Structures are given as C-alpha cells and as structure tokens.
C-alpha cells in the first residue's frame, strides 16, 4: 500500500520562476489497484510520479510504501519497492548494453550487487521465456545490443524489466505517449496483461482521458498539484470522457481547455 500525504513541492522557490508543482496532494493506493492518473499540462502528474520514485524530494508531506517511510530516501534506495517505466522509450534501457545485460541489471533491482558474473547461465531460461511472451522474436537476440531495437520493442523490454522482480508499486509515466498508435496499443495491452497476471499495484499517468477510463480499476484527476476527483468501482463503470469533463467542471467550475486531453 502506498500512502502519499499532503505532498508539497515548489520548483525555483524564491525566484521569479517560482512554480508550485504539488500543493498538498494526498493519495492512497491499495494493494492490487491499477490507478490511472490524468490531468492537463502542469497539473503535477509527472512531478507526483517523480516524488514517488525519489527523483525529486518533496518540501513537505510524507510518502509511506508498505509501512516504510521513504519520504527522504533517494531513488536507488526505493528501487526495491518502486519499479518504473519512463515516457521516453530509450530511457528505460541502456543501448550500449546487450539485451541480456539489461535484463540482468533488472533482475537485481534494489538488491546488493557483487563481483560474480552479471549474466548468469541460470538466468537464460527465464530471460528467454519472458522475452518470448512479448511475441517480438527477441528471445533469440539475447546478445544483441539494446540500441538495435525499435522504440516500441525497447519500451516492451522496459516493461518486462520493471516487472521482473516484485515491487510494491509499478509507476508508468505516459509510457505509450512517444510511440506510434499501433505500437502504443501493443504496449498498453502488454501492460494490462502483465499487471493482471502478476496482480501488480500500478499507477499509470496518461495524457488521454479515453485511455484512463479504458484500463485500470480507478481513475484520479489532478489539477494544479491537487487531486480534483477520484473515482473507482461502480461509479467508474460506463463513464465516458464527457462524464469526466462534467465532473471536472462541477468540481472546479472550470472548463478544460487542454486540447490534447480531449482529443487523445
């Protein structure tokens, strides 16, 4: 279970460019929930994810992951509990390393690394079968450099790497946004499969309201660094984009003007 309480974070404090990204944001994600997060540009979606991952430390508030207060911990000390897939398909893997070396990095996520060989013979079967599950023919290319793969293939491998070892939460930061529509559908389907099969707890930021309603078990909308609404279960069933817009207007008395949010 992840509990974020009253998170506040201001970038460039005390400068003319002062920008409050999180303004008292609170959210609790229960075990097994798949939360989709939407919001217009500057709503604080990415900052919230970065705060959960440890890439930015919040000014105040607390983040508790499975009972452990991680608020002040840097990214690498949270990595055993927090898995992550980035928006940039090239960011989640190392292009200079081979596919099996990338997977070997992921299989040790958050654990001690010693001086034994990184790519062990006993990993091979596991690497092959998990790559085969992607259906991209990568299981025969373990020794290829990651840089030879396409963006979609690399994002699929990133997803595999993030789900290779158990985590308390899987963070997905608009991880299909930089892909072409067909590849994006493939990666999204893969995401929901992996999350369902392994009953992962996940938080997916998306720019598309339609996508936010299609997948997951709960949808949260952020606006100006706070949660505007949070719907799950029966309330969420059958909702359409228009309903979300009405909900937003009712809550805020504002109209959504971010085109990409409506069209996506």
């Amino acid at each position, binding site marked *: 279970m992840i509990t974020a309480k009253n998170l506040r974070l201001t970038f460039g404090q005390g400068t003319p460019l002062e920008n409050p990204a999180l303004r008292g944001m609170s959210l609790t994600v229960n075990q097994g929930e798949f939360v989709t997060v939407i919001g217009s540009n500057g709503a604080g979606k990415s900052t919230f994810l970065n705060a959960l991952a440890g890439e930015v430390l919040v000014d105040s508030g607390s983040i508790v992951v499975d009972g452990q207060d991680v608020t002040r911990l840097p990214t690498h000390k949270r990595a055993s509990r927090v898995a992550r897939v980035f928006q940039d398909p090239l960011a989640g893997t190392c292009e200079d390393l081979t596919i099996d070396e990338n997977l070997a*990095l992921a299989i040790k996520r958050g654990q001690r690394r010693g001086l034994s060989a990184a790519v062990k013979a006993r990993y091979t079967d596991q690497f092959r079968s998990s790559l085969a599950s992607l259906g991209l023919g990568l299981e025969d290319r373990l020794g290829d450099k990651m840089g030879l793969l396409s963006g979609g293939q690399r994002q699929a491998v990133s997803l595999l790497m993030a789900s290779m070892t158990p985590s308390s939460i899987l963070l997905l930061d608009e991880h299909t946004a930089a892909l072409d529509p067909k590849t994006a559908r493939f990666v999204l389907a893969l995401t929901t499969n992996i999350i369902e099969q392994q009953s992962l707890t996940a938080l997916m930021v998306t720019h598309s309201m339609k996508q936010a309603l299609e997948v997951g078990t709960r949808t949260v909308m952020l606006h100006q660094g706070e949660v505007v609404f949070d719907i799950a279960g029966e309330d969420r069933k059958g909702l359409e984009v228009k309903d979300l817009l009405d909900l937003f207007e009712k809550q805020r008395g504002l109209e959504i003007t971010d085109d990409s949010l409506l069209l996506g």
Partner: protein
Amino acid sequence: MLSEIALYGAIETGLIYGLVAFGIYLSFRVLHFPDLTVDGSFPLGAAVAAVLIIDGINPWVATGAAVLAGMGAGAVTALLNVKLKILNLLASILTMIALYSINLRIMGRPNIALLSEETVLTPWYELGLAYQQVPVLLFFIIAMIALVLLWRFMKSETGLAMRATGANPRMARAQGIATGAMVILGVALSNGLVGLAGALFAQSQGAADVTMGVGVIVIGLASLIGGEAVVTPRTVLLALVACIVGAILYRLAIAFALNADFIGLKAQDLNLVTAVLVTLAIVLPGSKASVRAYFARRSQ
C-alpha cells in the same frame, strides 16, 4: 628505420601507457567522466613508488602503495564531483593542480633517481634475456593481468552497474544502483591504474620526476582513440585490447617519427606530433565513409 633498442623501448612504454589507456577507458568511455586527474596521479604513482623504494621497501609493495595513492587521488576528484557538485572536468583539474604540490611534498625535491635501486625489474634481468627485452616481458605480463581482471570486473554485477551508471544514470538509479558510489569507485579504479603506470614508468626509466605527468591525459586519449580506430570496440574485451594496441602503436609512431631523419623531427616536436596523431585518429575513422563515397562516385 627503428633500431632494435628503440623498437623494444617503444613497446615497453606502450605497454605502460596501455595501463593509462585502461584508466582513461574507464573514466571517459564507461563513466563518461572527462577526468584530467591522470596528469597528477601518474607522477603521484611514480613519486610514491620512488620514495618507498629508496627507503628500502620491497618494490612490489611500493608499486602497490602507488596504486592505492592513485585510487585516493581519483576518489578525491569523484567526491568533489558527486558530493560537492563541482563540474567533473573542473573537479579533476583541481585535484590535478593540488597533486603537483603533493607530489613535490612526497618526494621532497623535484626528482628522485632510481638507477642503483632494486626495482620490480631487477630479478628479471637474471633470466638471461636481452637487456631491452626484460621490461617488455614483465610489463606485458602485468598489462595482461590488468586486462583480464578489468574484463572480468566489467562483466560482474558491480561492473555492469558501473557501465549502466555511465550510459544511463536515470535508468541506473531506477534499478537501485547508487550512481554516486559507482562514479567514485570507477574514477578511483581508473586513477589506481594510472598510479600503477606511473610507478612502473619511474622504475623502468630509472627516475621519478614531478613534471613527468604533463600530457599523460593526451597520450592516454591518443592511445584509446587510436586503438578504437584499429580495433573496433564491439565488446568490452575488444575495447580493452584496443587500449593496449593503441598505446603500442602510438609509441611506435612517435619513435618512427623521431627516428626518421628524413622527416627532420626532433625530440622537442613530440607534443606537436602527438596533437597531429590524436587529430588524425579522431578524424580518420569518420572520414572512411566519405572517402569511400568519393571513390564510388568517381567510378560511376
């Protein structure tokens, strides 16, 4: 052409600079950390080894101490960068400058002669090999041991974490790798190798001198880049082999240029020749394609 002594001399120095190239491969290529500390850690290794040797300490122990001193210098550079957030290049320049004073302090004077002292080479002269072949044999063995150890390390879990740190730090952190610690370890290892090279160089040349570090970074880079132009570094092993090959080729090219009377070059032209060679080594591999395209057009 080259005399036999000049040939062996070039290979001998080439093997030593191969160790420097290993260090520069670690910092520049693996960690993407432009580290100029080597200009200070090379004479540091020489100074530490020389002082201990004239104190009567076993030359291998003295050489080991030089490695540790080099690692310490590298760790200082990395700490300045990681903990105090000083730009990596600047951090290394600060350590390099500081080392000049420290090296003078260690030696107590600008240079120390080792000509009559027992060095790591002394017992090897009793093997019955020609005088100029002895250092080549010993330094070849040392370079090969360093190559194998470094190769095994780069393939280990920690070594892989270090490579990920240099290639994609954000991804490395997300995988739970303490990237700061990896930079400190890597730059320390790099300068440990350079300290080793300095210690061996002092013992083979018979002296440690406070100015012997000037331009080590350029020679190391020349070896690294030249080696990569000759041996395509597709794997870690090939990249390490390229370091050694590049360093020996570099020394041979220098020896040839200085020995060929018809070119008219003298010892004082060394740095100019180095700069030209580095430029060629950087430019030539990239121009292969355009040269090929030119001839392809011509033949149409």
